[in-house]
């Protein structure tokens, strides 16, 4: 647990709960007040009796006074299912360009690692934190490592409930390792098809998918998920400062491209990035998807404790 989340941080998020606009009907009674009238002790309203209603719900005291049959309605308490889809492709396992190739100079002395936090690690921490908040709120949690290493089927944590499962959940997240990237649309569609308990779904990814992700997101929405898109990027991907002639090797596919990076190329890259991100934001707004852009330069605690709260995803 210590590698991803420390005890102090866990205490900070212990009382936080995830907010869902729609609470789903589950097989178990949850701790969330549902819009549906149910069988809890909380009185909600009255309605006229119609044939076929359960006679046990008739308010006989009202019938005695008014000689009219009314049914007494109670609030239904339902559970929340949290789906955490963590993109474990190799593009996520990246920490930014070595500083020796950037305008900032060789602060790291030309090591292969970048100056920023690894995107996958950052995402794992976020995933673990969200899962912990759900477990603490007695919600059901399932986690899938998309494109993670470990065979054709992605590692998946089955629906888990209860705070006592925290250690298991965190260890599962820790054990996820990056694997070769596949078609994100297909992966998401497959996940949507397998969903039996739609709920609040976080897709945590850099979305570096040439074929895009829109079809997959649509399928998830069709399956009933309330989607939050956590777009995790390194600052070097948002605003690169590389200079020179490079053979750029794609960490996922291994494909290389010769690029002469000068100011003109950098300007063009930034234009392309902004167009791409604008497309994502527009799609998300149109489909009522929460789009959250996160850079690994943002401290992880700020993301969870402040940023997500401001966006109304956590309360």
């Amino acid at each position, binding site marked *: 647990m210590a590698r991803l989340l420390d005890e102090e941080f866990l205490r900070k998020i212990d009382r936080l709960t995830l907010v869902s606009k729609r609470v789903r009907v589950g097989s178990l009674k949850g701790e969330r007040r549902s819009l549906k009238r149910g069988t809890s002790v909380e009185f909600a309203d009255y309605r006229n009796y119609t044939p076929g209603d359960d006679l046990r719900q008739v308010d006989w005291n009202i019938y005695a006074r008014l000689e009219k049959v009314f049914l007494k309605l109670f609030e239904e308490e339902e559970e929340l299912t949290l789906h955490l889809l963590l993109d474990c492709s*190799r*593009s*996520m396992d*990246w920490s930014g*360009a*070595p500083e020796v*190739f950037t305008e900032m100079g060789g602060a790291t002395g030309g090591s*292969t690692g970048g100056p920023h936090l690894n*995107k996958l690690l950052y995402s794992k921490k976020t995933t673990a934190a969200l899962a912990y908040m759900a477990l603490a709120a007695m919600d059901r949690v399932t986690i899938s490592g998309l494109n993670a290493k470990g065979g054709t089927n992605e590692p998946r944590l089955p629906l888990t409930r209860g705070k006592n499962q925290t250690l298991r959940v965190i260890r599962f997240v820790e054990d996820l390792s990056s694997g070769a990237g596949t078609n994100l649309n297909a992966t998401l569609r497959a996940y949507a098809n397998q969903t039996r308990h739609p709920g609040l779904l976080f897709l945590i990814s*850099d979305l*570096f*998918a*040439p074929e895009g992700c829109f079809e997959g997101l649509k399928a998830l929405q069709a399956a009933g998920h309330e989607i939050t898109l956590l777009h995790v990027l*390194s600052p070097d*991907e948002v605003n690169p400062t*590389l200079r*020179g*002639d*490079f*053979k*750029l*090797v*794609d*960490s*996922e*596919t291994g*494909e*290389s*491209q*010769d*690029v*002469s990076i*000068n*100011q*003109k*190329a950098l300007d*063009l*890259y930034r234009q*392309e*990035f902004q167009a*791409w991100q604008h497309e994502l934001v527009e799609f998300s707004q149109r489909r009522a998807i929460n789009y959250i852009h996160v850079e690994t330069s943002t401290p992880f605690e700020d993301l969870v404790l402040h940023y997500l709260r401001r966006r109304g995803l956590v309360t």
Partner: protein
Amino acid sequence: MGLLFPFALGLLALALPIIIFYLLKVRREELTVSSNFLWRKVIEDKQANAPWQKLQKNWLLFLQLLLLLLLVLVLGRPFYASEAQATGNIIVLLDGSAGMQATDVAPNRFTKAKEEVKSIISGMGGNDQMTIVLMRSFPEVLTSNSTNKNELNAALDRAKVSNEPANARAALILAAASADRTPGTTVVFASSGAFARDEDLPPLKARLKLLKVGQSDANQAITALRLRESGGGPQLFIGLNNYSTTPARIQLQVLVDGKSFDTREIQIGGGEKADLTLTDLPLTTRLVDARLKPVGNSQDFLALDNEAWTIRNAGTPQRVLLVTPGNTFLETILSRLPNYKLTKISPDEYEPLKSKESYNLMILDSFMPTSLPINSLLLINAPNTPFLPSSGTINLPTFARLEQTDPILRYTDLSDVALSKAQKYTLPEWARVVAADSSGAALIFAGDPQGQRVLGLAFDLHDSDLGVKVSWPILLINILSWLQPQGALDQVTELNPGEPISFTAGSPTEQLSVQPPQGGAQTLTQNKGIASFTDTQFTGVYTLTRRLNLPATATTRATLVTDNFVVNLFSPLASNIKPLDDLGLQGTVTQPSTAKVNSEREFWWPIALGAILVLMAEWWVFYRGFKLPARWSLRKAAK
């Protein structure tokens, strides 16, 4: 137009490797990124497996090829053909003699000649070199084998015309030596031709180009000015010469000791002389100044020879006291020497004699007074005294050891002089031996105790045959000159400009100074009793001042004696200012001053400047990029 080094064009082959460099792909650093997803859209260089790429439009390549082309052109040394007055190795003999001061061309011939030489310098090509020699009484090399035009012009600016006659022979020897070493030499003679032609001028193995300066021969000169004694007083002889081919009328003015003595107008025919003798000059005449100036329509373009000076009786007569019982050899010669006033007394008459210090020189023959005189002394066969102890006599001594380099023995040969006997002196410390016998006993000695000059002969002239030898009068004059340098001018009172003059100092402590006519006295430095003065450039009257530092025993510690000498330009060559067309030199191909030769003038420097600009543009494009202006791009797009 062409290239002096066309083989440099072969270097254009370097364009091939430059283009190959651009065909080669850039060696790139491998860098792993998270994804090429976005980069793929900004890729400019297409991936290819071959090490070559298609040659693309590249401003850097264009600029580098242009730079190569310009550098190759510079190395090829481009030139264009033009006409020049002289090319190759050029030796300029610039006449700096007195005649070049003639003002028949403005401002004067010398300045005009310098302008002509400067025009040759400006026409010099990159391969041409020039040596400039200034001809005066001796040649002065102003700059040697220089290709730097600034240096040549600066050397010309430093050149000054002199009052001296030209010594063309020495300058031509220099030029001939240089021409022998460098074939194809052109000797440029910038002169009016005022130098001697009858002497054996060396032939030149070179093209000779005469820059004739001057256009007139109008000049009248004083060619002689002499004072001579006659029964009625001094007479003045004046020589005049009209060097012009046309008659001239001049006004002659004669000043005696600063006062006008005679003024008259004289008509002199073309190319003729006029001699004039003036008598009845004042008996006290000392300095005569003669001046001429043209009158009427006559012209005179050289002022330097229009005034002359002469001095009468240069130097005060020397008073000599001869104390002798009788010596024919001495008396005969001393009485005949000019400028010496001899007083002869016997030894008995010495002590009563008053004002002994007024004599410049004392000759004591077989006599020595009780108290030593302060004058310069010639001691002959001096008896034994504490001043000069004698230990007896030597029989039949011979002049075995002679200090022949001593000025006292100059031009003498005493080896055949026979002596019957001589004093055997114990010489004091101040004395040096000039001549001695085989045992080393001094026969002639000299010295200057406490600034007093003393010379001794250890024998009686009657005990030798020296008095009848040819060397005797020479030896006596040498002795007198050494003892009493009052005749320091050696009777030379007239010099040509630039001629050095030397003076004999009376003693090592004597101070000599010369005041030139333009002022500014110069103190002279003695070297073994001789002081030289060389700054006789200006014509006029020079004043020599001698400060005599007498010994401590003298009543007067220091006296001033002044003397004069004059510098006149009595040079027919300098005064005859007629410019000559033929220099009379042999072994040369003479070119007129207007003749031009083909010259190849290089113009590599503007190309080198262009190369620098292209290099700067290449730097700019490399670091800052290059974009065509928008309107050009639009036009191109429209096409």
